């Protein structure tokens, strides 16, 4: 089991000791190959949680275990760099090299791979994000479009071949086409067996990509389950300032009108299927 959190608390040093900590007594298991979506209001501790999982912050109390290694130890946190890739908000702001290939190769080189291995890793990573080495490798990362820059930055993280990928609001600030590109990329990576943890404010993205959803509130776990389970709690979510996917809202409206679609649908596809089967249930007689 790749990521296990046991009663993890993190309080930033120098913050008000009477307030709730940034992450408050959180227990959680992320399974191999799972796609976990993390949502929560601003300041609920999503980014902090993600830093804990990546070993970039040490928990104040409790235990974080990744791939069996206890992250309380510094050496374990360092070793983790190879296994966990983390993509921060606006990752394109961390691009620095003259060419795409050089930038993507930074991680492999820093981890001490030979030139040849590093090149293979770069080639691989760029191919995974759909930006072929031969076309884009020699270009400056700064002349690419926003969506392309972000894909290069993600490739830079993928180049160290992590088996867990953590993303903090990977779609923020992109246009719809850019968002769709990133969403497709993430789905593809996940289909290839990568464990993914993604923080997002967009419920539709979460619903369409994630297997499981974690809702944080004031640093603690408010809800944890499949998208359908979590988004069924619409009123509660609204109370803590969160929305639900459009499909879920639509399904709720339908059932309020007396049309039972059978549970909560969190993606348009699921809702469409439910509506289609409803049509057949009603029988062909109504069709005419």
């Amino acid at each position, binding site marked *: 089991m790749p990521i296990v959190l046991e009663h993890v608390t993190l309080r930033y040093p120098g913050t008000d000791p009477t307030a709730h900590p940034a992450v408050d007594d959180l227990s959680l298991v992320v399974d191999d190959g799972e796609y976990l979506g993390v949502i929560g209001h601003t300041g609920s501790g999503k980014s902090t949680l993600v*830093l804990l999982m990546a070993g970039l912050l040490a928990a104040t109390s409790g235990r974080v275990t990744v791939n069996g290694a206890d992250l309380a130890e510094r050496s374990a946190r360092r070793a983790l760099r190879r296994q966990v890739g983390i993509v921060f908000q606006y990752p394109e702001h961390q691009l620095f090299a003259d060419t795409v290939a050089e930038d993507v190769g*930074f991680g492999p080189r820093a981890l001490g791979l030979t030139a040849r291995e590093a090149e293979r890793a770069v080639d691989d990573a760029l191919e995974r994000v759909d930006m072929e080495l031969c076309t884009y490798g020699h270009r400056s990362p700064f002349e690419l479009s926003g969506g392309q820059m972000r894909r290069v930055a993600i490739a830079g993280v993928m180049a160290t071949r992590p088996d867990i990928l953590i993303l903090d609001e990977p779609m923020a600030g992109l246009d719809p086409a850019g968002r769709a590109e990133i969403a497709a990329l993430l789905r593809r990576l996940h289909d290839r067996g990568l464990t993914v943890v993604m923080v997002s404010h967009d419920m539709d993205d979460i619903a369409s990509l994630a297997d499981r959803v974690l809702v944080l509130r004031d640093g603690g776990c408010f809800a944890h389950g499949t998208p359908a389970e979590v988004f069924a709690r619409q009123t509660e979510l609204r109370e803590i300032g969160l929305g639900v996917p459009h499909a879920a809202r639509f399904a709720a409206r339908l059932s309020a009108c007396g049309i039972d679609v059978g549970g909560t649908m969190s993606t348009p596809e699921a809702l469409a299927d439910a509506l289609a089967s409803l049509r057949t249930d009603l029988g062909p007689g109504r069709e005419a």
Partner: protein
Amino acid sequence: MALGQYHKADSPLHRMDPRFKILVAVVYMLVIFLARELVGLSLALVFLAGAVAASGIPLGLLARSLRPVIAFVVFTFIVNLVFITSGDTLFALGRLAITSGGLSAAAFMTTRLFTLFVSTALLGFTTSPVDLADGIEGPLTPFERFGVPAHEISMMMSIALRFIPILVAEKDRIVRAQTARGADFESGNPLTRMHAIIPVLTPLFLSAFRHAEDLATAMESRCYHGKEGRTRVKTLQPALRDWAAVAALAILTSALVVLRTVP
């Protein structure tokens, strides 16, 4: 340095007119060099202690802000101790001699440095960037006649100060991101370490330019066009405490001057 690290609080020092505060701080830093013996230096330290007490800044915070300069202070102490030879020899090791003159020079120099750093830190902690800029513009305005761009200088200062914490946070973010990609900033020889800084510096500069551009656009779209015709939200008005500070400084200065005439 503590400049740009404003610590919000409500204390007499915070409430002081920034023009007076800056003036008192600058004059104080000059006056320290008048102190040549123990009594004078102690008086200067008492003045500083008074300022610290009136600032409401926690001592721990003040001490932390001095951490970066400790090495410099220690270095100064050692250089003075070793290279100034006068008075009795206290300790000798081959050609190296520690003398009483060297010891007292080292002690004086380090204490002076210490007071300089503490007073700058106090100024930074108790004066918001906006106040600092106002406080600088005021005293500079008379020099506009001679071509000193007082308003521009103070505007530049306030922007620079405003951006220090933003860029520090940005740097932390970038360091974290590159660390996660396997960068190592902690080990290796100085040369590899210098090299390791490039992946941080490049994005940091880019982000600084991005901020600068955004700010310029924002200022222009709000019709900023320099000083002409600008009025202030807050007009500065010296209060009793400002004159009290000036008086205290005047007393300290005259005491130090008098002490110097005493053989």
